[in-house]
């Protein structure tokens, strides 16, 4: 009986993790579908390709975006922390 409880508990935990992670995993799977494969619903693309990533790196200034995020994040944390600790 204890074994059954353990299994049920593990299933619940797995369910929670799956629910939390699924959309993120789905986004990753979708990003590996190139061209018209995007419009088919498969769990894993039949022809996974990194073409989408290539387009992003080519078209967008990804380096600058990341640097902007880092600068904004550190500045906001430093300023808010500084002001709040003083107060």
């Amino acid at each position, binding site marked *: 009986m204890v074994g059954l409880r353990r299994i049920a*508990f593990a299933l*619940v*935990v797995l369910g*929670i*993790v799956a*629910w*939390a*992670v699924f*959309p*993120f995993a*789905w*986004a990753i799977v*979708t990003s590996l579908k190139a061209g018209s494969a*995007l*419009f*088919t*619903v498969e769990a894993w693309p039949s022809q996974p390709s990194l073409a989408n990533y290539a387009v992003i790196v080519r078209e967008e200034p990804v380096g600058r975006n990341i640097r902007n995020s880092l600068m904004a994040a550190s500045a906001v944390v430093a300023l808010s922390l500084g*002001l*709040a600790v*003083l*107060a």
Partner: protein
Amino acid sequence: MVSGVPHSSLERQRRRAAWLFLLPMLVVLAGVAGWPLVRTVFFSFTDATLATLDGFQGVGLDNYLWLLRDPVWWRAVWNTLVFTVVSVGIETALGLGIALILNAHLPGRGLLRAAVLIPWAIPTVVSAQMWGWMFHDLYGVVNAILMGLGLIAEPRAWTADPDLALPVVIAVDVWKSTPFMALLILAALQMLPRDLYEAARVDGVHPVTVFLRITLPLIRPALMVAVLFRTLDALRVFDLMYVLTGNSRSTMSMSVYARQYLIDFQDVGYGSAAATLLVLVLAVATVLAVTLGRVRVDVGR
């Protein structure tokens, strides 16, 4: 703490130092939060537009009178209230359950908590887009899975159908914010003293009674703080509705309404009136929650 007139020069020095320390934060708050708020309230009494921010005239309470007579505004208020009550309710219940589960001694607990935190960590705009694609009526995975399981007969237009759109928005917010509630409650659960539970086990108390009589009252302060934060966040929700359903009347929140009039229709006076009412609603909600819920924002008893 002695109150009233400071008696010694040392105490006066201390008070002066305290004010000096507070000054930077007060100045920044006044500039970043106070000034825009005052300006918004000011504009709500004028007929300014985005193009004529200098040449406006006072119109008294006209904007507010129009606002209170607009059924679209009341629909927005209704949407926001329904969204707040339902989503915070579900998130609290689910968060409580997940926190109790995560509190158990499991292998890989840290990894588990990190995984559960992912929905909260992804920016709302990004996750709303992800969910928007998943709820797509033709190529979305939600329709595919539901039809595959035989739960629905034909694909539904989840974000376009006025009856389904608000439940969809609520569902996405539940996915996003339950981890926040769960982790706050988990932090409170981990600070509970063990000996209470030992005594309860020795006495043979039923687990449900243990939960209701021991756990729940002890985590009540932290729970109330979490509920207050989530309620205020939910009352001013914007990005979820805007990204998933745009300006659709069946889901628009008060923030979406205010933005539509401020930016799309360029009516700064009217939009500011809507924004001011939203701030009033938030203020009332805060006061109610803090007094009725006896929320303590300060640590320690």
